[in-house]
């Protein structure tokens, strides 16, 4: 921000000084603004679009950030730390050891008794609905409301007394899922038994009602049901399923101030937790969970990742906005050329001319920055409404409730950025104008072409080549993608300045520009290390450099395209006029073309990415399934057995998974992080193992699975740490997105042979794993695959609650899945085909892609509006020429068509280049970048979307230009010529 303030001060300082101390200059500038209010409004309108897009990008970032961060307080309320016991009777000794009375900064404690179970609508109802993995909670409502300082944050205000008898109070998400309300009957299934209960109330997802057993998996929804005290133990005693997971006894602790209540709270939680950990250390089965901090950290990570993504993608639109700004001020300057020439002729000094133009531009810039940033807030609001409906539809446990947020600092920053960009453009054009040749300006003659052999072009050319080469060198040395992409582009584009000295313009510009495009398409393969973990900025840089090079290529050779068009059009006057202006004003055309290319490039790139991800569903499903057809997940408190599954109609074979949440720690991590692990046995490999992306030492997939199932490497394999200490790792199959949080490319993509420690969260015992295979696309969330006995012994207690199921020949897997889910409701079984599971997972991605594309559509709006503004100005600029054409006998329809064809010529070039580059870049990135090596991706072109992208922007552009084109056709020749003469 301080840099921005300095830049604003630098760019506005002289303007303010002149406006105050030089009344003559001020009056001259103000008169220009006031005497042409229409012109002034157009300049402001064009300029504010750029600022609006910048502001929108910031506001969307704020909204996502706040919405995700909001998850923590709404879900957890006053719960900061939780003392968890693996077995219920382990909690009391832990509470005693914790000596809570003497713990500082404790605001309240609350005992909770919880169990993962299935809640369903009654079995006698048609169209039965069920929610496995619901958290049953037993808690005293009065105690709960007194927990912490804010009763409202507990979620139970107004929930009445603690449920008794056959009452149950449901969380909002569960009630919504089951489509039940107060007075409806539900059934609770656990431990092989069930209870029929009546819904007494529904509470919001907040505090105790928001704290479910899945909180550590990052779900944003919470499926909770408050049952009468004694229900869980009663069912456990009645059901007699000793293998099933026991209930969880826990003590929720609220730290003074809470994490969100004042600055102190943020540090108290972890400190208090640390103290608690010390006191209960050594007690079996006890874990101190820093739930609030974990949720906040996760939220912050996701928010920052989304902000980065939107900021990066928004960067394209911002650059498009900048190009529009430059175009508008260049047009303004050219239009005023004669007038400025006269002012110089009557004695206005060069620097006064520059400063007058500066004051005038600053007036436009200030209004545009203020109005543009406010418009950005409005557009951001619209996006958040669309995003809200998309994000609320997230699958299963993940959905974000969007809270529109526009931080004043963001709006101010956008305003200042817009102002600085405008002022830099204004000063640039003013200085250029200041150098005008008085006679040529008065006569409105074009400036002679610049000497390609000037000393200035030599200096800039050499500097650019040197700078670009140094950037490339530093980028490759540091393994950083942005300079590796940008450096060669700068060097090659600067080379144009040097080549022009000796070679014809077409060759001098076309060859380096084509080389830039070629390099950007192949850089991943040339310097793979630099592109291993690319940042969003790299994609922006690559997009901008490729688009710039392609635009230079197109602009340099536009006469060839136009020549071909003219040969086709023959004497069609509208076509000749339509291409003549863009060809004659290549700089301005280049700016417009660049704007379109960038926007369409980004849209195509994202559309292709989205298409490829969606298209991978059947392939990924095939890779996941191995020799099986279905995947069954079930509730830990009452999972079906393999035998029960085999007894179902249509089931041929079953392989169970013992899944648990454990902690892992890599060498690059500061502390252990939660991830899933699943134990499997040889049954999983019976019909063919799931595919692997890569394997350790290139061993066969089956061998890697078999080695992992065995739980140990052959004794002949000797392993030693760098210091020579021998160790015996456990073989493991690791998912490609292992320990990846917040979306985007992985920060450290796992590779075969990597070592990682697995840490028992309770005992803190650790063992070292060695990745013998990397599995792509872990859509089931099975996490790290390990030998079943190892998981059973290392992470206890845990149950076999997940199954790979093969349908019998002749049975439709979808029908078998539906039957399994319906028949095994008491077990909380959810059976899905692998394809359905992947499709469900990708539906959230699809929604997200749509949102991003919608956001990018804003850029398109800027492009279309920009083209409209430029055309309105073109009509004014060419008024006299239009008048002459009409005098010569050109029909008004020809004039209108000429403007529409001019827009078509520019927009269609931009669209075609953008689509082609977008497809090429997407192909290149997916084929070569390590960022996409984590998924089994096969490139394919989204033909339908490409068709839309070719047609819709063009039609929209033509509609945008229809107004100015019509106004051009209505120019009355006598009026236009009278004004001129």
């Amino acid at each position: 921000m301080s840099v921005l303030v300095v830049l604003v001060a630098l760019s506005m300082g002289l303007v303010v000084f002149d406006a105050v101390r030089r009344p003559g200059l001020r009056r001259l500038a103000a008169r220009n603004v006031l005497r042409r209010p229409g012109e002034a409004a157009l300049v402001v309108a064009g300029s504010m679009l750029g600022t609006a897009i910048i502001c929108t990008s910031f506001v969307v970032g704020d909204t996502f950030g706040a919405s995700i961060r909001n998850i923590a307080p709404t879900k957890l309320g006053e719960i900061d730390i939780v003392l968890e016991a693996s077995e219920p009777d382990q909690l009391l000794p832990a509470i005693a050891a914790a000596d809570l009375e003497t713990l500082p900064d404790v605001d309240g404690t609350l005992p909770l008794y919880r169990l993962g179970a299935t809640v369903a609508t009654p079995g006698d109802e048609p169209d039965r609905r069920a929610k496995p993995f619901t958290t049953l909670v037993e808690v005293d409502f009065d105690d709960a409301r007194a927990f912490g300082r804010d009763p409202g944050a507990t979620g139970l205000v107004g929930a009445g007394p603690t449920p008794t008898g056959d009452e149950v109070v449901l969380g909002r998400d569960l009630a919504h899922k089951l489509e039940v309300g107060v007075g409806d009957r539900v059934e609770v299934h656990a431990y092989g038994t069930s209870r029929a209960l009546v819904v007494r109330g529904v509470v919001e997802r907040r505090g105790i009602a928001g704290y479910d057993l899945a909180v550590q998996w990052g779900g944003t929804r919470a499926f909770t049901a408050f049952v009468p005290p004694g229900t869980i133990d009663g069912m456990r005693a009645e059901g007699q399923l000793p293998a099933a997971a026991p209930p969880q006894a826990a003590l929720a602790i609220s730290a003074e101030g809470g994490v969100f209540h004042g600055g102190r709270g943020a540090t108290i939680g972890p400190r208090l937790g640390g103290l608690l950990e010390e006191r209960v250390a050594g007690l079996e089965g006890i874990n101190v969970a820093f739930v609030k901090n974990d949720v906040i950290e996760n939220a912050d990570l996701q928010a920052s990742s989304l902000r980065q993504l939107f900021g990066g993608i928004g960067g394209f639109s911002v650059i498009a906005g900048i190009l529009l700004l430059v175009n508008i001020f260049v047009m303004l300057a050219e239009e005023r050329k004669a007038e400025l020439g006269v002012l110089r002729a009557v004695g206005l000094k060069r620097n006064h001319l520059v400063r007058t133009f500066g004051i005038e531009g600053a007036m436009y810039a200030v209004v545009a920055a203020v109005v543009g940033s406010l418009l950005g807030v409005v557009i951001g609001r619209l996006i958040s409404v669309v995003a809200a409906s998309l994000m609320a539809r997230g699958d299963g446990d993940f959905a974000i409730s969007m809270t529109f947020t526009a931080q004043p600092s963001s709006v101010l920053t956008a305003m200042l950025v817009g102002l600085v960009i405008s002022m830099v453009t204004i000063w640039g054009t003013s200085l250029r104008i200041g150098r005008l040749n008085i006679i040529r300006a008065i006569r409105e003659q074009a400036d002679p072409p610049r000497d390609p052999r000037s000393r200035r072009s030599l200096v800039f050319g050499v500097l650019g080549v040197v700078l670009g080469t140094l950037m490339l060198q530093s980028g490759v040395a540091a393994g950083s993608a942005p300079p590796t992409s940008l450096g060669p582009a700068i060097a090659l584009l600067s080379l144009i300045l040097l080549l022009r000295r000796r070679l014809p313009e077409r060759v001098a510009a076309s060859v380096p520009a084509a080389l830039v495009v070629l390099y950007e398409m192949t850089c991943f393969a040339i310097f793979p290390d630099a592109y291993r973990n690319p940042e969003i900025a790299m994609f922006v840089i690559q997009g901008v450099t490729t688009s710039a090079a392609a635009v230079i290529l197109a602009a340099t050779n536009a006469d060839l395209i136009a020549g071909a068009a003219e040969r086709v059009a023959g004497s069609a006057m509208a076509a000749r006029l339509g291409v003549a202006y863009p060809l004659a004003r290549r700089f301005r055309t280049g700016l417009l073309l660049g704007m379109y290319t960038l926007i369409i490039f980004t849209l195509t790139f994202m559309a292709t990415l989205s298409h490829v991800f969606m298209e991978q569903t059947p392939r990924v499903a095939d890779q996941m399934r191995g020799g099986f057809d279905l995947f069954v997940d079930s509730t830990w408190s009452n999972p079906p057995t393999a035998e029960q599954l085999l007894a179902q109609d249509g089931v041929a074979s079953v392989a169970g998974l013992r899944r648990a949440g454990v902690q892992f720690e890599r060498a690059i991590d500061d502390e252990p992080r939660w991830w899933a692990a699943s134990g499997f046995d040889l049954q999983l490999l019976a019909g063919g193992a799931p595919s692997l992306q890569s394997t350790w030492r290139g061993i066969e997939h089956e061998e890697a699975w078999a080695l992992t199932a065995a739980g140990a490497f052959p004794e002949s394999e000797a392993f030693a740490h760098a210091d020579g200490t021998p160790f015996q790792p456990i073989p493991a199959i690791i998912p490609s997105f292992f320990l990846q949080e917040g979306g985007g490319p992985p920060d450290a993509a796992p590779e075969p042979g990597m070592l990682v420690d697995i840490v028992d969260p309770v005992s803190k015992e650790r063992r070292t794993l060695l990745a013998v295979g990397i599995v792509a696309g872990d859509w089931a969330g099975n996490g790290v695959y390990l030998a079943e006995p190892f998981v059973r012994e290392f992470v206890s207690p845990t149950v076999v609650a997940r199954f790979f199921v093969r349908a019998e020949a002749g049975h439709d897997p979808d029908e078998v899945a539906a039957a399994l889910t319906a028949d095994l409701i008491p077990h909380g079984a959810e059976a899905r085909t692998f394809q359905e599971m992947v499709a469900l997972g990708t539906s959230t991605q699809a929604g997200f892609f749509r949102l991003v594309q919608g956001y990018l559509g804003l850029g398109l709006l800027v492009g279309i509006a920009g083209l409209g503004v430029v055309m309105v100005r073109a009509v004014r600029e060419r008024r006299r020429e239009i008048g002459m054409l009409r005098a010569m006998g050109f029909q008004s329809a020809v004039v209108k068509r000429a403007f529409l064809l001019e827009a078509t010529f520019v927009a269609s070039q931009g669209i075609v280049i953008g689509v082609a580059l977008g497809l090429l870049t997407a192909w290149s990135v997916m084929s070569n970048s390590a960022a996409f090596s984590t998924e089994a991706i096969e490139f394919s072109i989204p033909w339908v979307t490409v068709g839309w992208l070719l047609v819709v922007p063009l039609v929209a552009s033509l509609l945008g230009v229809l107004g100015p084109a019509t106004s051009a056709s209505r120019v009355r020749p006598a009026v236009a010529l009278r004004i001129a003469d």
Partner: protein
Amino acid sequence: MTDPSPLLVAEGVRKTYRGAVEVEVLKGIDLTVQRGELVAVMGPSGNGKTTMLNCLSGLDEIDAGSVHIDGQDIHAMSDARRTEHRASRMGFVFQSFNLIPVFTAAENVELPLLVTGVKAKEARRRSEAILEVVGLAHRLRNRPPELSGGEQQRVAIARALVTEPAIIWADEPTGNLDSETAAAVLALLKDVHTAGQTIVMVTHDAGIGRAGTRLVKVSDGQVTYDGSTDVLDLRDGKPAKAARRRRAAVTAK
């Protein structure tokens, strides 16, 4: 055989500009132009010369009266028909040339031909030929900003001539030119007229006006004089000093 009917007949043409203040610019113009005439329209600034040219050529609407060209009432035509008529029957030359800056000289000149449906190749041939006539054969590929003022006006005249129009309207064709260039342009117009072209030329310069075969003076929106250009040589009913000198020189020879 030359058509004996007048080329242009304007009767009672009135024109008022309506804005914050209503200004009646033409107050009933009656004018007949015969084929082959070079009519010089003169008068003080702001008295309606250019407006008269615009109204008589159909570039601007009129409030009352009629303008017949070749017997056709151009103000009774639709805009499209009148535009078509202009393309085929009229040429225009303006003070500020009004060339299309993004086209070359040849392209500028061929525009009116292309509008009237002449094939591109033929249009280019005729455009180059007429540019050669006006002495610009060496400037065919140059764009207007690369030409001098005189050259630009010669391109404009070539453009006006290329369709072989019935009438050329010239509004201060030498107004932006130095005296030497103006003389060259005037000579060109006179040559064109000598070849049979009808020209109506608005000018405020008596020297240019003398080139006409007929003088029409417009003052306060009305035609106040319509007759010989000799009147330009009279001052207070007598030949002006310059004219006396010219006559003396001729007598001496």
